[in-house]
């Protein structure tokens, strides 16, 4: 397994210039998580509209490139999408890392699929899987947790 698969350009780009950092305006759900072993932290903020649309989605956090990129990609991919679809993508993402499946959702653009899939390199680095999945698990918690 090559390091280059893990630290792809897309990932480094998201890690260095994370999208959607900060608290999104008018957020009404949030959740945070933290990995005591490495000190990674993430806090997800989201605005769920009445029509079950995630109109706002952002994060705060610190951590390794994988965890930052993962949070950034998550917000970038799901902002503006509806609740059920977002849950489906999240589960598919977690599945990708757990069972090495591929992400193939029709309603994601090819670009978006490439971006999310860039994190599949983590499959081969078992100690890093938590870094990649933390933001996504936290999103699921946030969806259950109204402010």
């Amino acid at each position, binding site marked *: 397994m090559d*390091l280059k698969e*893990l*630290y792809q350009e897309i990932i480094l780009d998201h890690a260095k210039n994370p999208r959607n950092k900060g608290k999104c305006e008018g957020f009404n759900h949030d959740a945070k998580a933290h990995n005591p072993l*490495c*000190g990674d932290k993430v806090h997800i903020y989201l605005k769920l509209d009445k029509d079950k649309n995630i109109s706002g989605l952002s994060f705060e956090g610190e*951590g390794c*490139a994988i965890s930052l990129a993962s949070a950034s990609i998550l917000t970038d991919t799901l902002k503006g999408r509806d609740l059920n679809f977002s849950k489906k993508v999240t589960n598919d993402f977690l599945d990708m890392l757990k069972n090495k499946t591929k992400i193939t959702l029709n309603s994601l653009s090819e670009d978006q699929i490439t971006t999310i899939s860039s994190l599949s390199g983590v499959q081969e680095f078992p*100690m*890093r899987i938590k870094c990649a999945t933390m933001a996504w698990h936290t999103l699921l918690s946030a969806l259950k947790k109204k402010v």
Partner: protein
Amino acid sequence: MIDFNNIKNKFPIFKQKIKGKPLIYLDSANSAQKPKIVIDEISRFYETEFSNVGRSVHTLAVKATNKFEETRDIVKSYINAKHREEIIFTKGATDAINLAATAFGEKYINEGDEIILTELEHHSNYVPWHYLRNKRGAIIKFASINENGEIDVDEFKKIITEKTKIIAFTHISNVTGTILPVKKIIDLAKSKNIPVLIDGTQSAQHIGLDVQDLGCDFYAISCHKMYGPNGLGILYAKKKWADELPPYQGGGGMISEVKKDEITYADSPTKFEAGTMQTAEVVAFAKSIQFIQDLGIKNIEEHESQVLEYGLEKLRKNNSVNIIGNPSKRASIMSFTIKGIHPHDIATILDDDGVAIRAGHHCCQILHDKLKIPASARASIGVYNNKDDIDVLCESINKCKKVFNI
């Protein structure tokens, strides 16, 4: 002179290739690799002498018990304890500190009493004292580090009061490698009649020990960091305390008489060794000490210092690397950060070159908070490391920068 270049041959693990490359193990502060004589002794013991100790009178039990108690004598001599009853075998340094803190706290810590720790402490030398804070209303004070990651004896002077009941601190920091001024702190404590517990987890494998000369009351050791088996530690408790402290865990072996309404306990060390012990581990630990003694702890100290100095010098030359702490007395440990690369990523990239280091807060969150960093990368040096290892480490650090386009 001992040839430290051939020492890797004594450790089977170095026959391994990691991702096709030789293993450069720089994670000994976490747990040390085991020499063949230790591994073989475990097998030999299980294959030819194993039995539970101290309980039966048959031949195997006699052999096992004698071997087990022989190790106690060997440890006693090695750390120059005065009495064999002062040597208590535990599951690890964590267990040792929990034992001491719990038993001591139960008898001597009351509401408002003060416990002094330092900002350098490993969680193992903080959480057990925190329990006393919660359960008995004690107060914990932390001696502060200076900008070099050192702790001056004056820091203790500032916070000792009439209410100080115990001082507990690490001999060598597992993050900065700082060697604390142990003797001065103990002398200060003694002048005020305050007992001292030393967390010797990072010291016993690097520098010579003499608990009588130190004058400490408790000293915790982690055998698996001394090239010994995992699941084994030692608490040295000065006879006065070994006699006075109540038992810790309750069970078989540690009792004197058991009635339905009352129980009396055995004397130390039996009093503190409840249940079936790690017989094979204790027996094999004698070989770890032999291994260290064959090399000579002075030679180990010198060899490791040379490798450390070489490493520090090389890292200092690397502008992107920030070494944590700059203590004037340091042993075997170099923790660092690289601007723009998280320690976790450093560890993964180094691993690709066969270099095993640790990333995280190394169970020292208080220190990392103080330094305002969430984590660091730590390369720690064992007896088997040499300057070539440092060269590979430094090359690999440069590779991190390449991977991250820095």
